[in-house]
């Protein structure tokens, strides 16, 4: 058995993210670009290394190619290590047959052997689709102090949003007394962030029991945690303050990007004490021409900017030609916005081309029917033809012909 490791992390990165539509057509949700030069998975991975957790298993299942390629040997996160490091864990063939990861708990269950190799005392189970900066070491400290079997990171959310979350009730000591899953009339605003710290010995047994239960859907939130709770295990809520966002939908991904421009949103990526690492593009600095107007925006290296940019996030190697206008939009790596095109309230995926004079998205203030308003999305590699119009809320995965309106 290997040298004892106090804490390892298991990162659930198998989700399809179907609500992100064309953005996750060919990539898993954790590989979706975010914030000008990152991908969503950079956040939990960087949190791990910044918290001193150097053994990370990344559980992949849906469209893992790009994610595997991106993580590689883990070098960008300092996770290429002699002991531990980052490991991609895909479902594999076993004597009793091959099984996909049936649920979050089953995914960990299928990798009990991997975890046992490191003989850890604690296992952090993280999800690969949240944007937040968190010190798991502090959470582990709390977990140890409380002598808990499981600690769940908890965020107090605004009451009006509470019904979208799994909620918790706690006593004065922070011990969880009850759960409520997405209730219509929430009585608590303490939401689970989907970040768990387990005492491995306990979790191991509950995973085996859960697997033997034919009625279980093998999910942490639905099955394992409630089972632990019913059995009277010590479950604690660890209060977290700071920015946290589930970027599971088009709107939330768009908002989370624009939050970077909002000083009130409290997500600071320039903090050198808690860097977010990523595999960056090898490219020159960005060039801003004398025709360009750029304000209140974020732009990454390799961009060539000649147009007008306002309240937007440009990823690396984006080209915005003269006279083009990008407003309240997210433009992902390698996309080209040609002369006179307008991209507003939209997300343009990797390597898409917006031809001259095309208009993508609508400004809600100028929209006749706000009911039908929403962020427009142009899929990866899609070309929107000359003078074509992509209406609000449209999601485009095929090329749009010249002059067409979709």
């Amino acid at each position: 058995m290997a040298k004892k490791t106090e804490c390892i992390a298991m990162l659930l990165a198998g989700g399809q993210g179907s609500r992100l539509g064309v953005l996750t057509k060919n990539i898993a949700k954790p590989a979706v670009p975010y914030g000008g030069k990152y991908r969503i998975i950079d956040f939990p991975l960087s949190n791990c290394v910044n918290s001193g957790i150097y053994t990370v298993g990344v559980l992949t299942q849906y469209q893992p190619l790009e994610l595997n390629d991106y993580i590689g040997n883990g070098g960008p996160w300092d996770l290429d290590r002699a002991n531990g490091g980052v490991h991609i864990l895909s479902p594999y063939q076993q004597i009793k047959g091959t099984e996909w990861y049936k649920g979050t708990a089953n995914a960990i269950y299928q990798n009990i052997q991997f975890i046992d190799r490191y003989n850890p005392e604690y296992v952090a189970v993280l999800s690969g689709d949240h944007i937040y900066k968190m010190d798991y070491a502090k959470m582990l400290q709390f977990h140890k102090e409380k002598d808990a079997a499981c600690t769940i990171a908890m965020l107090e959310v605004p009451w009006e949003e509470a019904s979208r979350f799994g909620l918790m009730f706690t006593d004065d000591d922070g011990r969880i007394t009850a759960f409520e899953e997405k209730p219509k009339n929430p009585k608590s605003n303490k939401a689970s962030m989907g970040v768990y710290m387990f005492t491995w010995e306990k979790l191991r047994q509950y995973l085996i029991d859960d697997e033997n239960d034919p009625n279980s859907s093998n999910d942490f939130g639905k099955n394992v945690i409630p089972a632990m709770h019913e059995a009277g295990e010590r479950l604690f809520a660890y209060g977290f303050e700071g920015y946290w966002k589930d970027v599971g939908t088009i709107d939330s991904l768009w908002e989370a990007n624009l939050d970077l421009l909002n000083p009130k949103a409290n997500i600071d990526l320039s903090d050198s004490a808690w860097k977010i690492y990523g595999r960056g593009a090898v490219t020159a600095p960005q060039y801003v021409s004398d025709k360009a107007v750029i304000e209140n925006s974020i732009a990454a290296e390799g961009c060539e900017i000649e147009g007008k940019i306002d309240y937007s996030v440009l990823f690396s190697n984006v080209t915005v030609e003269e006279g083009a206008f990008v407003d309240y939009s997210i433009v992902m790596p390698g996309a080209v916005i040609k002369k006179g095109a307008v991209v507003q309230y939209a997300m343009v995926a990797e390597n898409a081309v917006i031809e001259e004079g095309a208009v993508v998205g609508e400004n809600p203030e100028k929209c006749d029917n706000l009911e039908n308003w929403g962020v427009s999305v142009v899929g990866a590699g899609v070309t929107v033809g000359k003078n074509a119009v992509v209406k609000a809320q449209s999601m485009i995965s095929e090329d749009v012909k010249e002059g067409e309106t979709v």
Partner: protein
Amino acid sequence: MMPKNVLGIIYSNSYDASLGALTARRTMGSVPFGGRYRLIDFALSNFVNCGITKVGVIANSNFHSLMDHVGSGRPWDLSRKVDGLYMLPPFTPRQTELDANDRIEALNRIMDFISHSKQEYVLLVDSNVICNIDLSKLFNFHEEKNADITIAYANGKAPKLGRTMALSLDENDKLTGVGIDVKTDSDVNYSANIILIRKALLERLIGDAESYAYTSFEKDLIQKNVSHLNIYGYKINDWNCTIDSVETYFNANMALLEKATRKSLFSAERPVYTKVRNDMPVVYGIGSKCENSLIADGCQIEGTVKNSIIFRGVRVAKGAVVENSILMQDAFVGEDAKLNCVIMDKNTVITPKKTLSGDKSYPLFVGKEIVI
């Protein structure tokens, strides 16, 4: 010729003195350039992009920043079990006192390293030459011409560096004569000091140099051998620049504001690799203005930036105006400060409301970590 069969050697201290205060505490190779690079990145990237797998970096003095920058060679994929990157610092303190431009002495010192390398050819380059060229074409040229030595050259005004070779070539690009430090204002074919040579020949020449106490690579090994050896000149057609003064350094940076220069230097097929810093992308504040400038990640621009090169982590506060300037890593320009034709070194601070101005032919230099 297989690039794997070529050993790349970089002089990191080439002509340090020509940049004065910029190289007071660093080598020529670690001088910041173009917003996110160090000069050595161009030589290293040229090497690895053509397939060279073993690189030696000769360092004589002031090489802490260089060591910090190249590290194990990972960004260039030169951190390897077989071959890879080798730093070659001096053995004894005495050697640091030698003229850093003395190629013969420097090569003599690393002759064991060269001899023990399995490569049959050696490519010598200087770190003050900026270009992005396909070296495999140079190797093919060398083979086609059946040359003993191939020297890459550029056409233009000769750089004002000691021992600059001006090459006279016949119609077949064969070297017929060499002028050293020629006094002329007209364009010449000057050596870019990218020199390809068979290892066995280099060993012999350096051995001879030691026996006869030769001191000049250019004069004693090239000029004297024009008629004895097959020496050829290979013209660099891509954009290139030899840094020979603060003025050329300033102009080379500013040249990056031309689209054609950027296209040539930052080609997609031959990327320029550098150490990664993991800064966040550039943040433009409300009311920020930016025109005709090159800006690297990690910058926060709240004021106005025009015709400038801005390195990683620079902050330009509200109301500040930066024009025709080069701001290196983590420089800070306070509110309402005005800069024109200024080179700010790393970690410098301009406090609010200060005005600093140089001239394009004589930019004002603010040394590392100075607060004004």
